[in-house]
């Protein structure tokens, strides 16, 4: 399976810029500004996850890069090729899996995949297409018409179409929307395999779990503005709040005066105390846990259990896109 989707040979080294987005804005007819001066560089061979609430502008940004929407301002280059002035060279490198399930309802899986390859000007290569269809477990369905496929299968057909011309960059606009858990895991594996072969992947998703699982870097877009771009690990470290929960032996009515410096929260039933601290402060002593435990003993608060928890990317995300 590792060689299933051999992209065209990749000359340049991984980690160099593949897509440069420079000051891209979009105002739709009617005056709605969907993107405000977005600038972003996506590196060769990385998985970049674009997160954002509904209507944030994710699809708009992808559509501009792929040539489906005209930008109102700014430039995009793909591997150094301007996506407008040198659209042929730019688009040849790109495979797009759109958010909406579309397709020629009456044509067969096989025909539609062959069509895609031909449209991108690639010579016929049935063996390669067969490998893709097998990898996406569509081979048995190759003679089915698209309208006779389930939603998840249609999604995979769209992926097969996008891969049919061996792109070096793959855009996946919500690839796992409406896809069951098992298939979602399969798709993640496929995406990882592609990345291992050097394909640059940009995906949008509403499932934070997905970004957490897959992405090397994460961009968060909100109301047309890129509010954050970070390595996933760094993001989780930096923004990851930790929480220490102490299960009390006897319920409290209020947090004792002596513990005020620790900004503790008392659970509603008075059975637990919650302490929030910054994990980036690192090395234990910055966290203040030792001091807190000492203070608790002095104040005579006894606890039966304690556990810590790191906030997930989901919580980070929610706090980022929360309306001010």
């Amino acid at each position, binding site marked *: 399976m590792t060689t299933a989707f051999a992209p065209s040979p990749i000359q340049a080294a991984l980690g160099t810029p593949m897509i440069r987005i420079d000051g891209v804005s979009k105002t*739709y*007819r009617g005056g709605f500004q969907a993107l405000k001066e977005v600038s972003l560089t996506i590196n060769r061979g990385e998985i970049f996850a674009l997160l954002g609430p509904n209507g944030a502008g994710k699809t708009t940004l992808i559509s501009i890069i*792929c*040539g*489906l*929407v*005209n930008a109102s301002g700014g430039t995009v280059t793909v591997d150094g090729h301007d996506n407008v002035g040198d*659209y*042929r*060279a*730019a*688009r*040849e490198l*790109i495979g*797009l899996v*759109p958010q*909406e399930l*579309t*397709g*020629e*309802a*009456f*044509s067969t899986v096989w*025909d539609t995949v062959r*069509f*895609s390859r*031909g*449209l*991108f*000007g*690639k*010579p016929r290569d049935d063996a390669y297409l067969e490998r893709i269809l097998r990898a996406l477990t569509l081979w048995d369905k190759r003679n089915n018409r698209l309208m006779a496929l389930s939603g998840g299968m249609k999604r995979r057909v769209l992926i097969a*179409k996008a891969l049919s011309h061996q792109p070096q960059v793959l855009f996946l606009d919500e690839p796992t929307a409406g896809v069951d858990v098992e298939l979602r895991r399969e798709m993640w594996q496929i995406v990882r395999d592609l990345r291992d072969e050097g394909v640059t992947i940009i995906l949008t998703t509403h499932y934070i779990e997905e970004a957490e699982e897959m992405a090397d870097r994460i961009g968060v877009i909100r109301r047309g503005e890129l509010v954050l771009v970070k390595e996933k690990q760094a993001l989780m470290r930096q923004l990851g709040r930790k929480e220490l929960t102490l299960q009390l032996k006897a319920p409290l009515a209020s947090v004792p005066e002596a513990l005020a410096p620790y900004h503790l929260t008392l659970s509603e039933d008075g059975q637990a105390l919650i302490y929030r601290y910054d994990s980036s402060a690192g090395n234990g002593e910055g966290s203040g846990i030792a001091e807190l435990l000492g203070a608790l003993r002095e104040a005579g608060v006894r606890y039966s259990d304690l556990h810590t928890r790191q906030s997930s990317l989901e919580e980070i995300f929610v706090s980022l896109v929360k309306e001010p």
Partner: protein
Amino acid sequence: MNLKAVRTLYLAELARTKRTMLQSIVSPVISTSLYFVVFGAAIGTRISEVAGVSYGAFIVPGLIMLMLLTQSVATASFGIFFPRFSGAIYELLSAPVSYAEIVIGYVGAAATKAVALGLIALATASLFVPLEIAHPLWMLFFLVLTAVTFSLLGFIIGIWADGFEQLQLVPLLIITPLTFLGGTFYALEMLPPFWQAVTLFNPVVYLVSGFRWSFYGIGDVSLAASLGMIGVFLVIGIGLVGWIFKSGYRLKP
């Protein structure tokens, strides 16, 4: 030129026709036969000759033009409207193909189908009336040029249309009346002078006239006028399509 892509588009469009092959062939045969029964046999027997040609033979070029225009417009407009409607057009717009290549693929396929149907209609007509074609090469030339021009028009309609109603409205409201009033079933000289003058603004008159000339060496207008007008339509069509793609009209938000 991404020839591979043009070929792919062209063949995929023709394949769509293949799925409905039987209808595609049966409809021109039936409609041509009907016209002959009504106009050729029923009415034609009361009309001796038009411009020195038997009435049955006289209407053949007009009938084929009728077929050609309707089919070109219908096929080409549907061909591009459908992916717009289904959303499948995303692939076309994100592919490394130029506007010209897209147009050649779609218009070429629609014109091919229209010419094939026109020839089928011609063959059907030959069962009813003895046909002679004075200038076969010119006949083919007019056939192809008209099919291409009106496929281009159909393509424009398919991009402009916002729904299936509009898709059917234009052919119904414009193409059919223009064809019926375009000298399909009569010679212009049979009309009162005023209407003759009005008719000269009807583009279809020039197509039918030129086409009829290629059969019988007679026409309502001169050959040069026919050729000139088709050329003008073609240029207008190409210009419009160019503008559509340049501005992204109805294709790119």
